[in-house]
């Protein structure tokens, strides 16, 4: 195993060190305040709406948002805008249907809301399965993406990079629980927003603060010229773009690591307020990324493509170096180092959120309520959660290393959003809004959505080898992201399972769930410190 893939970049490593030291300090502070289950899973429900808004932004915007989307804009232009637009509009779904109701009716996990009115054990099992599927796929994607990035930015090679990311992620979650995870996410969101503002100002300054001039120059610098400003360069077929947009639009509302953030605030008012802050931050950042991505094209031109990599992932670091004064200059190296550190913080915050959501599903749903049937102590539940986090973390590290750069990160991210939208979201919405919904519907719906997403992804052109992936058994119907098929399948399975089953008991509990979800009556209170 080689530790160093290339010449070590001292400055990025030093800035990385500062970021890691600060987050470890936060974890130490949080560890003294994390002992009960409510503290471990939900930070004692003491996070304010404002803080949670920043944490949601930190939890949501991954390295693929910061570097990936900017790179796609650099390479392919406005096609990548669609993903950003869908990703921000998706919070409308979260706000209108889920944020406050989750806070009012749930405790630690998505399964709490489902099992409220359905048969507890089967409902928890399928809900936990949905959470674990999304979290593990997304986790492996983030680990692989992070490893590749760190290797490119610092010269530390892939395997040790993944191990370091995994070790810090586990330290935050195991010792500091949700409180440490939250503050790592807040710090990361602060770094990310600052980096976005600085890059935007520096890019605009190059064009006399005239964004129209920037756009014109960007199109001139692209081999496709004016087609750079039209959709169609990134997605080969029309259906691909539509499907991709739908996956992002509905996927956010099924992402467990985002939804469990609403359990960390004291009440529904803070839950909805946190969405307000989150959409302000995420929307502003997306608008900046659109400018910076095009700015990278205008400034770096075709000459920057080699350095930015085949999917443009390194366009922002290369741009930062150029803005700081260019290759070899002190300013350039400093800018590169800072942007690299922001990218690292970004990866760490997202993977920590994913691990804690998965550990909640294992400990609270599967262990406490399914295996131990609620007879375990709170102390036991927290320890099981720590052990589960360790197991999930190590497993994802091993998978990321074994699969290595062979994993297609964008396929995995697309799969995670697809499963979230097709398996988790239909069951959650039906449980909250459809009196007739029952346990069979939840089981058939989650499994159907899960199997449809994974099955169609496996059959998709992105997985099958050969030029233009001609080997795909679905032929021209095979989509890079099957959301346009799998989401309706998920909803249909929930409905079909419900109406084909004679079980009616779930309706009685619906009245209680409905009153709780809408009014917050009897909701879990914040623990007193």
């Amino acid at each position, binding site marked *: 195993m080689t530790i160093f893939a290339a010449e070590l970049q001292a400055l990025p490593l030093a800035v990385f060190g500062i970021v890691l030291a600060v987050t470890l300090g936060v974890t130490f502070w949080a560890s003294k305040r994390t002992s009960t289950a409510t503290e471990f899973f939900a930070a004692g429900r003491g996070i304010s709406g404002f803080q949670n808004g920043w944490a949601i932004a930190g939890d949501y915007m991954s390295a693929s948002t910061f570097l990936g989307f900017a790179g796609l804009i650099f390479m392919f232009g406005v096609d990548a805008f669609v993903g950003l637009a869908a990703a921000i509009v998706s919070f409308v779904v979260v706000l209108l249907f889920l944020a*406050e109701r989750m806070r009012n009716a749930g405790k630690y996990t998505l399964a709490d809301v489902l099992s409220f009115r359905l048969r507890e054990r089967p409902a928890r099992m399928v809900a936990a399965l949905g959470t674990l599927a999304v979290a593990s796929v997304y986790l492996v994607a983030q680990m692989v993406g992070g490893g590749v990035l760190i290797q490119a930015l610092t010269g530390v090679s892939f395997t040790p990079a993944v191990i370091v990311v995994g070790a810090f992620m586990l330290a935050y979650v195991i010792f500091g629980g949700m409180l440490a995870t939250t503050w790592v996410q807040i710090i990361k969101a602060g770094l990310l927003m600052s980096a976005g503002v600085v890059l935007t100002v520096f890019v605009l300054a190059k064009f006399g603060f005239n964004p129209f001039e920037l756009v014109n120059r960007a199109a001139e610098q692209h081999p496709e010229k004016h087609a750079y400003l*039209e959709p169609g360069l990134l997605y080969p077929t029309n259906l691909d773009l539509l499907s991709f947009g739908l996956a992002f639009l509905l996927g956010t509302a099924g992402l467990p690591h985002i939804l469990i953030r609403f359990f960390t605030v004291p009440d529904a008012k803070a839950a909805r307020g946190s969405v307000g802050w989150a959409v302000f931050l995420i929307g502003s950042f997306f608008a900046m990324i659109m400018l910076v991505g095009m700015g990278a094209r205008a400034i770096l031109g075709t000459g920057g493509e080699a350095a930015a990599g085949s999917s443009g992932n390194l366009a922002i670091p290369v741009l930062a170096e150029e803005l700081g004064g260019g290759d070899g200059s002190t300013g350039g190296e400093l800018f590169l180092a800072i942007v690299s550190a922001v990218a690292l913080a970004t990866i760490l915050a997202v993977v920590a959120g994913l691990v804690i959501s998965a550990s909640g599903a294992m400990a609270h749903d599967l262990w406490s309520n399914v295996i131990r049937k609620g007879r375990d102590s709170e102390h036991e539940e927290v320890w099981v959660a720590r052990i589960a986090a360790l197991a999930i973390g190590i497993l994802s590290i091993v998978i990321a290393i074994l699969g290595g750069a062979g994993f297609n990160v964008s396929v995995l991210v697309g799969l995670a959003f697809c499963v979230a939208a097709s398996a988790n979201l239909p069951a959650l919405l039906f449980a909250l809004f459809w009196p007739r919904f029952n346990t069979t519907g939840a089981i058939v719906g989650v499994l159907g959505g899960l199997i449809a997403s994974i099955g169609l992804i496996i059959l998709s052109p992105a997985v099958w080898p050969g030029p233009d992936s001609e080997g795909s058994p679905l032929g021209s119907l095979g989509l890079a992201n099957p959301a346009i098929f799998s989401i309706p399948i998920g909803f249909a399975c929930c409905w079909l399972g419900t109406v084909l089953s004679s079980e009616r008991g779930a309706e009685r509990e619906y009245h209680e769930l409905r*009153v709780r979800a809408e009014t917050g*009556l009897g909701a879990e209170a914040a623990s007193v410190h």
Partner: protein
Amino acid sequence: MSSPTARADQASASATGSPGTAFDWRGIESSPEFRELVASKRRFIVPAAVAVFAIFLGYLLLATFAEGFMGSEIVDGLPVAWALAVSQVVMTWVVTWLYLRKADREWEPLERRAAERAAATVEAAQSPSGDRFVR
């Protein structure tokens, strides 16, 4: 209650017996306060969701099928694709702001009144926050 074993310890955790009896959930649900709350929320949420979905799908369909139009420039250097993408961000902000304003001004007082009515139906000795979940 479909799974009595899993929730066996709830009866002891809650002084009010099974969680269903702590409040008269059906009674609250059919109270005028609760009906008004739910109707008021629905009057906002359903049209807002339909409008947002329609506008976003319109944008998505334009991006998919009207490539030339998306590339045309409103003024020199401002392609339609860019303006529409930013408009989605602005739309999200506006809908979120409207929702938050509605929730603070209209729904919160209604929620409080529904909760007060519920509390009035329960004896003073009973805790209004029964531990609903199996730990």
